[in-house]
């Protein structure tokens, strides 16, 4: 028997709603969306909440328009976000690349559902993890954060905004149907509400603004809004520091290389993980998103039976938090990677970081992976 405190601000709230509220707390001013299950509650919440906070929420005619409008608003200097699921994200990819190339901050909440194609609108999945990351021609890393619960949606949406603004890059908040639509108890009064640091503005009085010039390596260029005093030249074509279309110039290559360098330079800072290691563990369970909750539950049950197992939840999927992974590995000779897709998509990304340890994949589609399956994988010989 337990007694609840006399007053509480605990609410029954979904991950989708806290994704929207997290965005608003971070300083999101512009949202353009097109509805798609299971992400639609983010859209609806933004349509309701943004106008009353002086922001702009736009019902776009399709996903291509939605992200393009966000990029337009962001070019004008406003923190922008859209939300979608796999089929809608596919339509956005051209514009994601444009945001990479033009170094335009924008956050995309991608609430995964069963694929491929239309797939299962009301069925969960973690099948878009590589689609989200490797949708860019040229290999530029798109930061991807993966929440496991409602409060985590709030926190990681804020992280997505912080890094999107800081590095002037699109960032994907990779949620899933279970995380996005499950209602759970969250003390919403305790959630942070201070806006994130906006993109670094061009110093006042800059005479000649070169929109893609960098003052220090590993940092994005200073930002000037379209409509402001400094003349902006934005382009998705390969360009020099002035934004001029150039072919085969070393300066163009420098600008391209800098797109990745700014991500690499901050990879360790972006690495967010939850680690629960156990001395003497022979297996490390690695997971993310909704599957991480089943994984932790499985680990606790194994431990309750006297087994020794370590647990690592990746909240940052990209850039791969390699240092944190190495540290969590410890002396474990065996790694179990749990994710709800056909073949273990992220496990393939992890493999080179495991220094030759035995990799066991626990996968499945069409239903959440149960703790029982994970327990079996942990306790299996070898």
């Amino acid at each position: 028997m337990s007694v609840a405190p006399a007053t509480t601000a605990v609410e029954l709230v979904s991950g989708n709603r806290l994704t929207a509220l997290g965005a608003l707390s971070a300083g999101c001013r512009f949202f353009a969306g097109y509805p798609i299950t299971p992400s639609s509650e983010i859209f609806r919440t933004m349509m309701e909440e943004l106008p009353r906070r002086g922001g702009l929420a736009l019902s776009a005619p399709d996903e291509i328009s939605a992200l393009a409008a966000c990029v337009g608003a962001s070019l004008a200097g406003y923190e922008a976000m859209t939300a979608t699921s796999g089929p809608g994200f596919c339509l956005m990819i051209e514009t994601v690349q444009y945001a990479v190339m033009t170094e335009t901050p924008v956050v995309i909440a991608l609430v995964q559902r069963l694929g491929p194609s239309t797939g299962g609108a009301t069925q969960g999945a973690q099948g878009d993890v590589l689609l989200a990351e490797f949708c860019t021609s040229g290999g530029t890393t798109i930061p991807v954060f993966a929440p496991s619960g409602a409060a985590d949606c709030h926190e990681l949406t804020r992280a997505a905004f912080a890094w999107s603004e800081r590095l002037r890059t699109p960032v994907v908040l990779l949620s899933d149907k279970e995380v996005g639509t499950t209602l759970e108890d969250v003390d919403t009064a305790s959630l942070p509400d201070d806006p994130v640091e906006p993109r670094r503005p061009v110093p006042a009085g800059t005479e000649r603004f070169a929109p893609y010039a960098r003052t220090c390596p590993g940092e994005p260029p200073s930002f000037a809004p379209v409509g402001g005093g400094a003349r902006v030249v934005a382009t998705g074509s390969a360009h020099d520091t002035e934004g001029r279309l150039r072919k085969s110039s070393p300066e163009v290559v420098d600008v391209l290389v800098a797109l990745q360098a700014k991500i690499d330079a901050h990879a360790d800072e972006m690495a967010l993980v939850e680690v629960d290691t156990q001395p003497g563990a022979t297996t490390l369970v690695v997971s993310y998103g909704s599957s991480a909750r089943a994984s932790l539950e499985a680990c606790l049950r194994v431990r309750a039976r006297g087994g020794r197992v370590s647990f690592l939840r990746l909240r940052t999927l990209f850039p791969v938090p390699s240092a944190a992974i190495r540290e969590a590995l410890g002396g474990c000779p065996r790694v179990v990677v749990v994710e709800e897709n056909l073949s273990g998509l992220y496990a393939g990304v992890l493999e080179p970081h495991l220094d030759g340890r035995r990799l066991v994949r626990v996968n499945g589609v069409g239903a959440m992976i149960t703790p029982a399956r994970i327990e079996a994988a942990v306790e299996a010989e070898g």
Partner: protein
Amino acid sequence: METQYLRPGRGPYCKGCGHPLVLRALGEALDRLGIPPADVAVVTDIGCVGLADGQIAGPHTIHTTHGRSTAFAAGLALADSVLGAGRLKPIVLIGDGGATIGINHLVSGALLNSDVTVLVHNNFLYGMTGGQSSAFSPVDFVTSTAPQGGFLPPLDLARVLLAARAPFVARKLAGDRDLADVLEQAIAHPGFAAVEILELCTAYATRWNPLTGATLREVAEQAGYELGVLRDEPRPTFGASYRERHAADEQPAPPRIAAQAFEHRLVRPHGLVLAGSAGERVRTAATILARAALSCGLHVTQKNDNPVTQGTGFSVSEVILGPEPILYTGIERPDAVLVVSEDGARELAATGVLARADAETLVVADDGIELPPLPREPLRLPLRETAGPKLAALAAVAAWREATEALPEEALRAAVVARLGDDSSRLFAPGRSGKLAAREHPR
């Protein structure tokens, strides 16, 4: 001509190409309007027209993706009109190819009435990629993909945009002496303005077709294209309408502080599945239960499932209550299954929920529903008959509460009242612990 808007020279365009004529007229129009260059954003599409960026002097330039330029411009214009000073004038330069790909962005820009001016450079084919046919190529027009001449009729974009309620639509020839006047009108227009400009592609179109500046008007006539300003009727812009519509919005509510708190009797997580039919308030009943649990200091998860259809078929909610934070949000072995309709029973059979019930599982079911043999004798109640279909799920929750005593009756009653209103306390018969007295008070 060099102005604060335009650089000198014709740019990278072929001799006789219409693009520099449009640029010159644009420069003239901006010059006459005297808009500060910093308030103008030239948003270009892909193709030869996209090379115009290099010819722009003072205004911002944004070179976008193929066909999507108007969507980017809409984002700029709408954000500036609602969140900013409302001075920004995006001007889209797009070709007939881009307009074909992104016609929905033009239609949408017109419907939204975003303050965007779109100049459609229609030279009847794709120029940069080698003179292929576009949706704008006239009948019998020879292109690299229609060497014998095309046979499809051309798109009448101006009519499409008129149908999309664009407040300003014009169609001009690149050589028209008053082109700058019309562009001036279009840019000054408060809201969406589209000008389709018919022009020559001297790299391909004039080489393969008997087309000159002098015969351009005939091509327009044959295509049934009206020329001139086809509409100039301002209507409220998106920004103005949006601000007006939301002027009286209430400020966001602070988080709810629940003053009431009850005690619970759970020592381990309890997974409950509630199954019924869409439209019969299954979710509502589950949410009432979840909120009652919250008021007892329990951790709760609630999942709702339905077919892709919204108002027919099953509706299943899964609620987990626990003294500790809940990790896995699925229910491997249900502690309780409440079945209130045939739709619900079918779905439980399909997903194997009842097959996972064991001797500990409490099954509460309407007495009219057929169930498979179960390890534990189900609690059969006339839920639908006594409570009615819309309250059967809530009646099942009340029966579950009474059987398990996981929560106090007051907690459930308070949650029912909070959700359904004060008079809903009538639903509970006096002195009967948690049981709905729906027979006396049918709804």
